[in-house]
């Protein structure tokens, strides 16, 4: 459907343009003065000094979830690598030493230069081992190779940075529910 918008016809003062130009400059000047004098009321964020607030649901850098004993939850099934449209996940599997677990991940690299942050890997993961809720959006490296994030970096996150109601994060080592989870882990086996 086409909608015609009628513009208000300009009067003769406006049609002179000279006064309108000064009116526009006044707006600019107003904001410049506000930036100088009342900095905190500006709607923009002065980026590197102050980081914007990012929602937990934003698809940021990945992290690998941990079992209570600190090993990655990943079972190396390769669903993420299969779902990945950019083919940026590289993983290798090995038999687990822990008798309770069948398969463990040996290498898990994500090339963040290739990644398109679609989140399909997170959805594909059958064991909730991969999440994109780190709120980390800055990628600054000097070399291309550094953008390939290896497993130990994906695993090095602190449960303190995650909310208390995120049980799975809190069950990881260092989390508030870790002790409990470890007990349950030990008990259930025997």
């Amino acid at each position, binding site marked *: 459907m086409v909608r015609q918008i009628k513009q208000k016809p300009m009067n003769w003062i406006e049609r002179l343009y000279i006064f309108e130009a000064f009116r526009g400059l006044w707006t600019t000047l107003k904001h410049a003065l506000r930036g100088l004098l009342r900095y905190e009321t500006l709607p923009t964020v002065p980026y590197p000094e102050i980081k914007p607030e990012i929602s937990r649901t934003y698809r940021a850098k990945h992290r690998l979830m941990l*079992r209570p004993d600190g090993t990655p*939850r*990943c*079972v*190396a*099934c*390769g*669903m993420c*690598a*299969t779902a990945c449209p950019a083919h940026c996940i590289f993983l290798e*599997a*090995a*038999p687990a030493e822990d008798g*309770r*677990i*069948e*398969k463990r991940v040996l290498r898990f690299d994500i090339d963040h230069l290739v990644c398109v942050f679609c989140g399909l890997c997170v959805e594909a993961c*059958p*064991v909730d*081992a991969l999440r994109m809720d780190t709120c980390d959006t800055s990628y600054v490296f000097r070399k291309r190779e550094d953008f390939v994030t290896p497993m130990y970096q994906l695993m090095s996150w602190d449960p303190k940075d995650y909310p208390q109601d995120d049980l799975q994060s809190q069950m990881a080592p260092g989390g508030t529910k870790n002790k409990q989870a470890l007990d*349950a*882990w030990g008990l*259930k*086996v025997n």
Partner: protein
Amino acid sequence: MPKLPTANSPKVAIFVDDKEVLVPGDTNLLEALKTVGIETPHICYHPYLPVSGNCRQCLVEQEGPRGRMLIIACFTPVTPGMKIYTPASSARVKNARQATSEFMLVNHPLDCPICDKAGECSLQENYMESAHQSRLRPEVGKQYHGNPDHTFVDSKGQVRGGKRVALGPRVTLDEERCVQCDRCVRFMRHVAKDEQLQLASRGDHTYITTFPGEKLDHEYDLCVTDICPVGALTANHFRFQQRTWLLSRTPSISMDDSLGANIWIDHNNGKIWRIMPRCNPEVNRSWLSNTSRLAYMGFTENRLASGDLNIVSDLLKHAKKVALVAGGACTLEDLAALKMLKDYLGDRASLFGGTLRPVLEADGISKSGDPLANRAGFKALGIPDNNLNDLMKHAADYDVLLTVHNDLFGDDEGAMILKKIPNRVILSAFNDETSKDATLVCGVNHWSEVTGSMINSLNILQKLSPAPTCPDAQLKPAYEVLSTLAGNPLTSAIAALQKVQEFVPALKPYSYENIRSTGVKLDGVLL
């Protein structure tokens, strides 16, 4: 073994879903329905194993004197005029199949993410094809979470078997995943003829096992991992290596035996991950020996780099007497190029061929026992296939020895007498014993990396396809190197095949396009 339909099967009319169709009359219903494009899901049935009929997955309905009855398609012979109903028309068949499938899945762990069979599993296929819905709640059956809940307790509260039972040096059994189809038992009993596996216990407690104190250890034991319809039997060499759907498959021929077993080379990222048998009813059916199957591990190791051909051709130019020796893995193309070289050198060169490895008995499964894979091809091209002893007797007469794909010194110590020949030029893929003792080596492509053709011991012309797994892009196929030495480079396999056809006019009708994947039987043609 079930009788499979052939081209000569008598055609009989049966009614499928009230429509009259012509099917082969000397086979079972499952195969007959397959010929008219109706796939029947099955777990325990395998075309090259005796019918056991225990999975009840292939149910169809048959009109009988007492009304319509559910029967299993795999064990029902085709009779003229029989009335069959498939899920296309019968809700009862559909429900019955779904229920069977559900019954099988109720005690089957939900291991698919970590199961090596996922992607080629019969249970998955049947579920996706016929059922695709389940009345089971997700908590029934094991949900794999990679945590202590891992020990699978079934809906009756029983712990179901071990997760990794080492059945033998090459095969691992997962008792939880086993559906007791007894394909592996039948394979060992009727094909391998060495009954090493058994079903023990009864009913719900049935499990696969070996005899007490014994291990599953047989030349064909890895075939049980192929025929296992679920991920219960897995091969140790492929365990957790790759997900099956990430592999690309190249159809080729195993060039370590003159039966020329048909194989799939499964590879990705330039690496071969496994070799699987490729079904060819006339050659190796669905079987492959461990030797051929595990050979891939050495394909990229210990390889030679490509050599400088100018030195070789200079050497050949000034040679007085040249011995050209062809070996086992030579394709027809390589042999034709060798013949070109012989023609180029004229009287100064003489052709030799054969192998110093012992020729064994055929085992009747996938090996003829003859390590000279292309022996029939040698005969077709008129290259001697068994005169290495002549060469060793008259070694002193020659001043240049050129071998192609023939590890003389590694195969037999007696060949060391050939060291009398001052110049030894070795065209080989590997840095083997012969190459180590050579004066000049020239690396060439391995047979898994070339397009080519071979004639097997049953006179079947088969073609090899190249897997993109060559470790060195500089390497060239042996036919290209040989023809370059002969002054007329054949830069493509097609050109080389044309050369073969020049030498053997009877092969004229064949090209890489019209040699079928299962080969062409050269009956009554030449040779």
